[in-house]
């Protein structure tokens, strides 16, 4: 009971609060928002995000350029401007855009786009993992979260939400924008005819979000600091790729060795979702393991991360 005399005597005294406390789901958004806020305060984040926007703009204007050239393919030459003007054959550029970059609104367009953006995602995740998650373990902030009316699941979900929003800002949302753009410059029936592509993009983005956010939280809770995080992600994403290429393309071992590269597995799962036949995977000379094997590895990876995080957070609850 508050002493009524004190209540009147000073404006700086303790005031009771009367209000309703909500359930455990509102706090997860607060956790996600705080993590995103911490990330957005890093200048490096904005630099790398700018780079990812440039990749998006390259694809965006590449698609536009392709349509523009298709309309002028009857012309023999296009005179380019600039300091060194020269005549360019539209067919040459069109061939480059359609075959090399696959900017044709097909499954390859979106899979390639997400693949290229993946490099930026990897670098940013490696650098921000400690700020968003590792610090909670390193500076003992986890008891701060877990002493509130939320469970470990809400904490992990909140962090996954933050990482997921960030990943989707770089991959899924721009890929959907490319899909919408292609519909505008092609025909309206493109949207309906390629609904599978749209759903595939969403599935691919969701799979990347779930896998990478769990992988990031698991590795960040393990190594905590930025430099070890960068080293772990380099081993997983760069060294893994180099080793699989050396084993399969160099030593001609079984193509299943490619499964050690998690980004390649996600790429395969994405193609599966986008409906690309396995034999149409590019480049054609590169033998790839089956879609199901890639999905299985991703599933194992997700389950392992969940079990590891459960154990890790339980241990923190006990010792913190």
């Amino acid at each position, binding site marked *: 009971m508050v002493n009524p005399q004190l209540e009147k005597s000073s404006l*700086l005294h303790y005031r009771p609060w009367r209000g309703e406390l909500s359930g455990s789901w509102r706090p997860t958004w607060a956790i996600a928002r705080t993590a995103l806020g911490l990330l957005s305060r890093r200048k490096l984040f904005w630099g790398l995000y700018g780079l990812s926007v440039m990749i998006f703009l390259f694809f965006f204007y590449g698609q536009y350029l392709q349509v523009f050239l298709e309309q002028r393919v009857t012309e023999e030459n296009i005179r380019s401007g600039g300091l060194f003007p020269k005549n360019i054959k539209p067919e040459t550029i069109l061939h480059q855009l359609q075959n090399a970059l696959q900017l044709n609104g097909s499954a390859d367009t979106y899979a390639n786009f997400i693949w290229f953006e993946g490099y930026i995602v990897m670098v940013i995740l490696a650098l921000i993992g400690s700020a968003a998650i590792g610090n909670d373990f390193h500076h003992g902030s986890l008891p701060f979260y877990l*002493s509130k009316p939320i469970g470990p699941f809400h904490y992990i979900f909140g962090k996954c939400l933050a990482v997921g929003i960030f990943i989707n800002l770089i991959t899924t949302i721009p890929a959907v924008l490319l899909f919408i753009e292609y519909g505008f410059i092609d025909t309206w029936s493109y949207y309906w005819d390629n609904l599978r592509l749209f759903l595939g993009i969403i599935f691919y983005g969701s799979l990347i979000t779930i896998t990478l956010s769990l992988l990031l939280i698991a590795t960040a809770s393990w190594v905590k600091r930025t430099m070890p995080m960068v080293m772990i992600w380099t081993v997983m994403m760069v060294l893994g790729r180099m080793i699989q290429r050396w084993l399969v393309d160099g030593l001609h071992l079984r193509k299943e060795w490619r499964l050690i590269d998690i980004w390649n597995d996600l790429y395969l799962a994405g193609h599966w979702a986008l409906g690309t036949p396995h034999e149409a995977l590019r480049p054609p000379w590169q033998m790839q393991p089956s879609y199901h094997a890639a999905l299985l590895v991703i599933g194992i990876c997700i389950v392992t991360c969940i079990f590891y995080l459960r154990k890790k957070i339980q241990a923190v609850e006990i010792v913190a």
Partner: protein
Amino acid sequence: METIIDLNEINQQFYSNHALKNISLKLKSGRIGLLGPNGAGKSTLLKILLGLISPTSGEGKVLSESIQSSKVKQRSFFGWGRNNFTLRGTQRGNERLRKKIGYMPEADALIPGLTGIEYVALAGELYGMPRAQAQRRAHEVLTYLELEDARYRRLEQYSTGMKQRIKLAQALIHDPPLLLLDEPTSGLDPAGRDAMLRLLLELGRDFGKSLILSTHLLADVEVVCEQIVILLNGSIRFQGNVDSIRSQQHDRYRLRIQGDNRDFCKDLQLEGIEILSENNRGELRVQVPKEWQTRNFFVLADHHQVILRGLEPDQETLEELFLRMVIVNSPTQVELATK
């Protein structure tokens, strides 16, 4: 006064380490000191009260919410039940319980990169407060704790005293009826410590908060608390109010004697007096039994023909009493009736 904590035979075991042994406690609302040396099990008990960890065995209630042993809870995954309504109920019970409790952890538990106001408002949102209300309340609490000038500063730039106060602020944000405070004066200088203890006393005495103050400093408990629970090696060694612990204090005297005092000392010991220290300048420190009367010193001195040049009371401090209580290896629990 309502009973806020009612524990029955609580045990907590981490592998071979028996952190808590058969803890049975019934505590009424008020200011309670949880006292014990490092490793006594205080923090573990606080985590059980908070529902952060489940006891290995035993049961109890905190603010009318049940605490269940891990024998029931361990079947849940991430705290979520597996096709079992009661397990989900346990998780919800823990969430309800934590809404009624403010916990100030011993560790820093700060989030680097956040400002003070963001940190406290985040705590409010984690408790389930709407964002706007959490922001407004964070300003209020920080002003009350005299952190208004530092609220827009990053937490990394806070001094130890400010860190302790902001940890208290995040525990107070939702105005809980019960505060669990784990070593709130740890790392503070004397002035900071006094200020923190004054705050806690004010919160308990004037604003009706129940406090459980976990510390290894008896002086902190003396200033703030009415009730006291002493833990040692995971067991309760004493439970009662602070006044009753004072009644356990031994009467002591400092004597200054001139002349050969060997026979005088022998007689003192025969009378049941314990000689705590003696130096070759005739200065003695003695502990007398309850029924001892001061004039008996003079009678004995006269009998042995020594001159008693100095006699002053030298009462056992609460610190000494606490040390004496925790050093005693008796397994029996000393219980005194709460007045």
